[in-house]
């Protein structure tokens, strides 16, 4: 009690409320979350403005009205400034005073954010204590130039066999996840976050999940999943749900990037997921139309490409001189009826370093994750792939492509030559091997082991309907009887001849113990 009183006395005595001159303007019109302000002659583009909601109110009412109502100057016109309101726009009244802060909109950044759910202004949404950090980063910042960067060379494992094997992602890369609704785009992103638990703590990136225009129920479910698996210990969730204003939805990915940059600048690795940029573009279109900017194709404003390119350019792998940190971006785009040639999908495809394409047909066939490996690419990830994975998955893409071509002939298999039949069988095995349940990411060394044995023609006679069980049992066998081979692959990141032989021996042991998982030879 005494301690608290002393602390309060000290604070009151030390408070020095200096009266400074402030630049103020007056709201002349307000509608649809946009306020027109007169008198702010010196305001900067994207400057943070404060609406004086306490004006004319008693102290009690001013205190009860809560946090300051912020705005961001977006249209600097000849006579006035158009401001997007970042909060409850119903509080805005004509004649209200608006104060210029002289600062570009910024967000608190720091380790204190880890494990928290926040809005794009850095305010806690998880019911926890208010967030206090020592540093603030501007929401908009120029991306690093070529001198500060270096090539992507370190893998970022997703824990998904099809991706890590054929569409590898490197730290600092921008890999688009694209597909129709209900094809598992968010699952790929969340599994990538969950898989970071399999990484050693010193190599584990800080993950930032940015939810843009998502339903609150979905965000709550994702946060709970992350909490249940222990992934919130290295994850930050930035959310501007569908009930948030278009301005907050527009800011959300930039806030995520600003947080990620803090960790990148500190020499750490960060992963930011933008779920999704289609809704981000829609929010920006809404804002632009309300700001009376001229509409272009599909009513999107002319700078919609720049909106996404300046965001995704902030993903980088920094040079050693800059600390060697990285910011990997996994933007998500939702297509309509598989139309990747729509405006926003083509824009983002051309900005990113590759795309993971998910298909409804594959999803409905039970191939999950429903990745179409034929059209999915990773332009820079190959150089980041570990030697072990390169060795085992090198031929995988080609084999699967051949299988897809031959697949049409499967129903006439009796008329096919032996070589074609074998290729079809191998393709079927590979498709089954690449299937994976959601939220069960597989550590890299286990992926290498299973893809190796599948590709080494030692599982060709396996019962294709029991591959999932075979995989589980085989990995359990490796963990119990051959743990050293997994450790060797994980540590060295290579697959030596000795390790290959051990894996083959393990298959022999496995066959003896599980004859029911293999077809009886005729």
């Amino acid at each position: 009690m005494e301690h608290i009183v002393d602390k309060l006395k000290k604070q009151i005595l030390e408070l020095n409320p200096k009266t400074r001159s402030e630049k103020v303007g007056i709201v002349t019109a307000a509608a649809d979350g946009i306020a027109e302000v007169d008198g702010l002659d010196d305001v900067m583009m994207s400057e943070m403005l404060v609406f004086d909601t306490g004006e004319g109110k008693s102290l009690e009412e001013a205190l009860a009205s809560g946090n300051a109502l912020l705005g961001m100057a977006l249209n600097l016109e000849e006579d006035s400034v158009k401001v997007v309101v970042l909060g409850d726009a119903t509080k805005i009244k004509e004649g209200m005073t608006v104060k210029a802060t002289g600062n570009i909109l910024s967000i608190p950044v720091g380790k204190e954010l880890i494990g928290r759910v926040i809005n794009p202004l850095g305010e806690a949404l998880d019911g926890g204590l208010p967030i206090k950090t020592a540093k603030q980063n501007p929401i908009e910042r120029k991306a690093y130039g070529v001198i500060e960067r270096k090539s992507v060379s370190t893998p970022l494992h997703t824990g998904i066999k099809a991706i890590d094997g054929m569409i590898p992602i490197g730290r600092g890369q921008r890999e688009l996840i694209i597909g129709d609704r209900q094809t598992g785009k968010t699952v790929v992103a969340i599994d990538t976050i969950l898989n970071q638990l399999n990484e050693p703590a010193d190599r584990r990136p800080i993950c930032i999940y940015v939810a843009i225009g998502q339903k609150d129920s979905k965000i709550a479910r994702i946060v709970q999943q992350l909490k249940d698996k222990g992934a919130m210990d290295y994850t930050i969730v930035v959310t501007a749900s569908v009930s948030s204003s278009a301005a907050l939805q527009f800011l959300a990915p930039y806030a995520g990037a600003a947080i990620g940059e803090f960790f990148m600048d500190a020499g750490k690795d960060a992963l930011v997921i933008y779920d999704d940029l289609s809704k981000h573009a829609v929010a920006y279109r809404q804002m632009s139309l309300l700001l009376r900017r001229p509409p272009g194709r599909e009513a999107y404003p002319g700078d919609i490409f720049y909106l996404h390119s300046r965001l995704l350019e902030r993903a980088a792998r920094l040079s050693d001189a800059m600390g060697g940190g990285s910011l990997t971006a996994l933007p998500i785009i939702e297509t309509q009826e598989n139309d990747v040639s729509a405006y926003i999908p083509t824009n983002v495809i051309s900005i990113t370093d590759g795309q993971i394409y998910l298909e409804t047909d594959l999803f409905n066939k039970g191939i999950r994750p429903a990745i179409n490996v034929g059209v999915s690419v990773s332009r820079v990830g190959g150089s980041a792939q570990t030697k072990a994975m390169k060795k085992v998955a090198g031929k995988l893409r080609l084999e699967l492509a051949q299988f897809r071509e031959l697949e049409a002939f499967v129903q006439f298999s009796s008329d096919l030559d032996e070589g074609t039949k074998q290729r079809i069988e191998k393709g079927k095995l590979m498709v089954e091997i690449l299937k994976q349940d959601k939220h069960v990411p597989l550590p890299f060394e286990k992926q290498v082991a299973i893809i190796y044995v599948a590709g080494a023609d030692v599982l060709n006679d396996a019962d294709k309907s029991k591959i999932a069980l075979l995989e589980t049992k085989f990995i359990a066998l490796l963990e119990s009887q051959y743990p050293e081979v997994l450790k060797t692959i994980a540590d060295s990141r290579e697959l030596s001849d000795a390790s290959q032989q051990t894996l083959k021996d393990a298959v022999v042991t496995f066959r003896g113990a599980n004859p029911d998982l293999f077809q009886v030879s005729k």
Partner: protein
Amino acid sequence: MRASYYAKALREIEVSGKIPEDKLVDHFLRTLTQNGHAHMLPKIVRSYERIRNHEEAQSTVEVTSASPMTEQDVQALLKKDPFRNVLTASHKKVIRKTDTTLIGGAVVRSGTTRYDASYKRMLLELYQSLISS
């Protein structure tokens, strides 16, 4: 052509007093029609009002206090810190206002610049500093 250009020209001639006001309006409307810009009239009126309001705000000092102040009180206040440099030769009018919600102190506003030395602001700042520590 921007409406503000017409508005600015109109205001500058009005201030210069080179021609009487009724003649000025007549000349202005004729010029507008001659240039084919008659449709811009509503915008020009708005822009003209904006210029007038801006000029008036620049030449006025508004002093708001929690309790009524006399002319002498205001003059004395404007000689004290932090308001010492507010009043300049360009100011033609000092408006006095009362806002009891300020609790104490005063808010002085000149054009787009505001000095808030009210007790209400200080108490709000104290509250913010207490809850954020």
